[in-house]
C-alpha cells in the first residue's frame, strides 16, 4: 500500500487522512520506520536512500537549532508582546550607558509569525519524512528498488517539473506578501502608536478597540473617517467615469470617417502617457499654484485681483483634482477604446443606417454596448484603483487643505493618503492598519458586486467570435 497515492485519491478526506497518516505508519511500520519518528530520515537511510535520509536528518537538526536559538526567544512572548523594554548599564571606561534591548514588541510579533510558519513547514516535512520511510519499507519488503536521490532529482525536472518551477515564486509570495500582510493585519489589534513605540515602550494586544474607535467610538476620528470615505467614493466615481466617457468620445471622434491625420491625433493624446505621471502632476500643481503661471497671467491681464486658491480651498481643490486627473487618465481609455472601435463589424452600422438610425441611436445601440462589454473589467479595475489612487492626490495637494473639521486629515485626503499621513507624520500605526483593512473590505465588496453584475462574466460565450 502506497500511502502517498492513497491520500491523493481521496482528496475529500485529505486533511483527516493527513492527521491519521502518522498513526497508521506507526502501527504498520517496522523498527526502522518507527525509529524515524525520533530521528527523521532514519528509515530512508537504512533502506539505502542515503542522501535523502541525511537531508531529512539535517532538516531536523536545523529545526531543533532554530527552536533553541530563535523560536523559543520570541514565540512564548506572543501573548504579552514583551514586558521589559530596555535596560541601561553604566560603562565606567567609556562613560556611557550601554542600552540593552530586552523585549521589542515589533520583533516579537514579526518573528513569532515567522516561527509559526517555520513550525508549520516542519510539520509538513515531518509527516513527509514518515511517509518516505514507510514507502521505502514497503518497497524493500516487496523487493522493489527504492528511488535513488538522482531519480528524485530527475523526476523534479520531468514529471514533477511544476513543483520545481513554482518553488521560487511560492517562497517569494510567502516572504514578501503573506508574512508582511499577516503582520500588518495583526497590528490593527494592538495599540501600536506614538505612545507605544518600540524599543523604548512596548505595545500590547487591545482586541477590537481600534475598530470601535474608528467606526463609532471617538467622535473626531469616526466623523473624519466618514467624511474621508465619502470623498473617496465621490472621487473614485468621478475619476473613473469622467475618464471613461471622455476617453471614449475622443476615440469615437478620432475614429470617425472624414477625420484627417488619425494617427497624428492618437499619437498627440497618447504622448501624455510617455511623460511620467508624477512629473505631469507636479508641473500642473506649479502651474496652478498661488504664484503659478495661471494666477500670474490672470492678474497681469487684470481679470482677477487676488490669486485664485486652486488648491487651498476645499471644494475647488476637489474639482481641480478631478479635472487634472482627466488629463492623466483619458489617453489610456482612448487607446483601449480605439482598438475596440476598429473591431466593431462595419456591417452593423451599415444595416443600422439602412434602417434609418440616427448617429446617437447607433451609439446607444451598437457602439456603447460593444465597448462596455469589452471594457467592463477595465472599468472595474479603474474604480478600485482610483479608491487607492495615491499619486494624484499626494502630488497635487498632499491631502490638503488641512481642515479643523478633520482629525489630522485634509479635505482632499483619500483613505489611502490619510493612512499614509497617520503613519508617516503621527506614527499612528494602529489606526492606519484598521483603515487599511477597511479599504481592503470596501475594494473587495465593490469588486465582487461589480464583477458579478457585469455582462462580461455572465454571458462570457456571447461575444466569443
Amino acid at each position, binding site marked *: 500500500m502506497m500511502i502517498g497515492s492513497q491520500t491523493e485519491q481521496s482528496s475529500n478526506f485529505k486533511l483527516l487522512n493527513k492527521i491519521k497518516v502518522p498513526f497508521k505508519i506507526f502501527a504498520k511500520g517496522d523498527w526502522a520506520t518507527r525509529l524515524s519518528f525520533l530521528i527523521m530520515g532514519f528509515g530512508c537511510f537504512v533502506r539505502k536512500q542515503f542522501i535523502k535520509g541525511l537531508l531529512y536528518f539535517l*532538516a531536523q537538526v536545523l529545526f531543533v537549532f*532554530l527552536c533553541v536559538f530563535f523560536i523559543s526567544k520570541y514565540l512564548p512572548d506572543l501573548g504579552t508582546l514583551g514586558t521589559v523594554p530596555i535596560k541601561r548599564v553604566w560603562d565606567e571606561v567609556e562613560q556611557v550607558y550601554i542600552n540593552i534591548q530586552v523585549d521589542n514588541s515589533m520583533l516579537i510579533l514579526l518573528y513569532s509569525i515567522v516561527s509559526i510558519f517555520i513550525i508549520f513547514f516542519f510539520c509538513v516535512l515531518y509527516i*513527509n519524512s514518515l511517509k518516505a520511510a514507510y514507502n521505502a519499507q514497503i518497497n524493500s519488503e516487496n523487493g522493489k528498488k527504492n528511488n535513488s536521490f538522482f531519480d528524485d*532529482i530527475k523526476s523534479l525536472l520531468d514529471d514533477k517539473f511544476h513543483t520545481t518551477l513554482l518553488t521560487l515564486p511560492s517562497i517569494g509570495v510567502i516572504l514578501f506578501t503573506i508574512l508582511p500582510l499577516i503582520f500588518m493585519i495583526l497590528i490593527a489589534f494592538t495599540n501600536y502608536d506614538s505612545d507605544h513605540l518600540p*524599543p523604548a515602550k512596548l505595545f500590547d494586544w487591545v482586541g477590537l478597540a481600534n475598530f470601535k474607535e474608528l467606526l463609532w467610538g471617538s467622535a473626531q476620528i469616526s466623523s473624519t473617517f466618514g467624511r474621508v470615505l465619502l470623498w473617496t467614493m465621490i472621487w473614485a466615481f468621478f475619476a473613473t467615469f469622467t475618464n471613461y466617457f471622455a476617453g471614449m468620445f475622443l476615440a469615437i471622434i478620432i475614429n470617425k470617417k472624414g477625420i484627417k491625420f488619425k494617427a497624428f491625433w492618437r499619437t498627440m493624446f497618447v504622448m501624455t502617457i510617455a511623460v511620467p505621471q508624477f512629473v505631469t502632476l507636479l508641473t500642473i500643481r506649479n502651474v496652478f499654484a498661488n504664484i503659478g503661471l495661471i494666477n500670474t497671467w490672470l492678474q497681469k491681464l487684470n481679470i482677477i485681483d487676488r490669486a485664485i486658491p486652486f488648491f487651498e480651498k476645499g471644494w475647488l481643490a476637489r474639482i481641480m483634482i478631478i479635472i487634472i486627473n482627466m488629463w492623466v487618465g483619458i489617453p489610456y481609455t482612448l487607446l483601449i477604446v480605439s482598438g475596440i472601435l476598429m473591431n466593431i463589424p462595419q456591417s452593423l452600422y451599415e444595416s443600422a443606417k439602412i434602417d434609418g438610425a440616427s448617429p446617437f441611436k447607433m451609439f446607444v445601440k451598437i457602439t456603447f454596448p460593444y465597448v462596455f462589454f469589452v471594457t467592463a473589467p477595465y472599468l472595474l479595475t479603474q474604480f478600485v484603483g482610483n479608491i487607492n489612487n495615491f499619486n494624484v492626490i499626494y502630488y497635487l495637494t498632499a491631502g*490638503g487643505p488641512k481642515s*479643523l473639521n478633520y482629525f489630522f486629515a485634509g479635505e482632499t485626503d483619500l483613505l489611502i493618503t490619510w493612512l499614509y499621513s497617520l503613519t508617516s507624520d503621527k*506614527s499612528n500605526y494602529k489606526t492606519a492598519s484598521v483603515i487599511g483593512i477597511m479599504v481592503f473590505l470596501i475594494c473587495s465588496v465593490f469588486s465582487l458586486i461589480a464583477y458579478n453584475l457585469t455582462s462580461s462574466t455572465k454571458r462570457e460565450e456571447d461575444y466569443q467570435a
Partner: protein
Amino acid sequence: MKKLFTILLSLFFCCSLFVGCTPKDQKDVIQLKVWGSQDDQYMLGEMADSFKAAYPDKTYKITFGVVGEPDCYARLSEDPAAAADVFMFADDQIINMTNAGLLYEITRNVDNVKSANSAGSVTAATVDGKLYAYPCTADNTYFLYYNKNYVSDMQAQKMDDILAACQTAEKKFLMDLSNGWYNASFFLSAGCTIGIGENGKQVVDFNNEKGLKAAKAMEAVAQHSTFMTGDDTTIKTGLNSNTFGAVVSGSWNAEYFKEAWGDKMGVAKLPTITLDGQQVQLKSFGGTKLCGVNALTKYPADAMKLAEWLTNEQNQLKRFIDRGMGPSNINAANTDEVKSNPIISVISEQFKYAVPQNNVLGSFWTPAEAFGNALEQKDYGGKTLQQLLDEMVRQIMA
C-alpha cells in the same frame, strides 16, 4: 517528489533566515551613519574626514543619508534599528524623541558641552535635567526681509505700515500663516502659552480672550489685499518674478533674497502688530538645531564622539562659513566674522522676542495649519472665530 521539494523549500527558507542574522564583523571597523539635510551633505563629508584625521587610532567608516532636520523624528521612529547613529534634528522634536526612547543620554564631557554652548541652546537639548543632544546652531527662527525700494526701514517696524507700503507699491507681503510655526507668532505675542501637561500631552490656551484678540489681528493681516501665503517654493518663484515687498522667512533663504534684491535687501526683526488698538511686538518660535545619538547605536561612545565633533567650535564656525548658520557655541558666536553678519545679528535681535519651541509636540502642527488655512481662505465652515479656536485647541490637546 513532494518530499524533496519540501526539504529544499524548508532548507532554503531556514537558510535565508540566517543570512540576516550573521554578524558582519570586519576587523574592528566602526561603522557610523549620519543623517543630515541635502544641502549639508558635502559639508558633513568634510567634517567626517577631519574627524577621522583627529582620531587615527580607530578605523571609522562613516556613511551619510539625506534626512532633513524637520523629518528626523518621523524617519527615525519608522525603524530605529536601521536608522542613522548620529542625526541632526530641530529641537521641537526632542520631547517626542525622548518619550519614544530614541535618543541616547549624553554622558561624556557633559560639563564641557554645557559651558561651551549658549544657555538657551543647552536648555533646548535638555529634558528632565538630562542632556540628550548636542546643540548645533542657534538660528532657527524667522524675521522680516524687505525690499528697500518699496518698504522703508521705518515702515518695516510696523505691520500696518508694511501692508500699506506694499499696497502702494503693488507688491505682496508674504507670511505662511497656514503653518503653525509662523501663525503661533500672533498667539505668543498676545500672551498665550504653550506647554506640556502632567499627562505628557500638549497644553495650549490659544482659545482664551487673548487668543481671540490674536486671531482677530491675524485675520486682519490675512484679509489684507497685499497678503500672500506660501512655502519656500513660493518664495523662490516669487523672488524671480519680483512679487514681494516684504517676506517673513528665515536664514535658510538669505541667499535667494540677496540674489534677487541685492543692495536693496533689508532685514529686521519682526514688526509690531496692532492688537486690540495697541502696538505689540510680534514674537516668534526660536529654536536650535541639535545633533542626537540613536539609542540603539552599536557604538555609543564613538557615536557621541562623532556627534560632539560635528558640533564643536571649529565645525560650528565651518557651518556658519559654508552655510550661513548661526552658531550656538559661545566662542564661535563671538568671533567678529559672525558678529558682523547682518543675518546673524537680526536673528539675535529677534531671539530677544523668541519663545523656545522645545516643548512643542508633534500634535500641534496639523491643527494649527488647519486653523491658519481657514483664516487665509476666509472659509470658517459656518463657525465663528472663537469656535475655530476651540476646535483647534481641542485637537492639539487630544
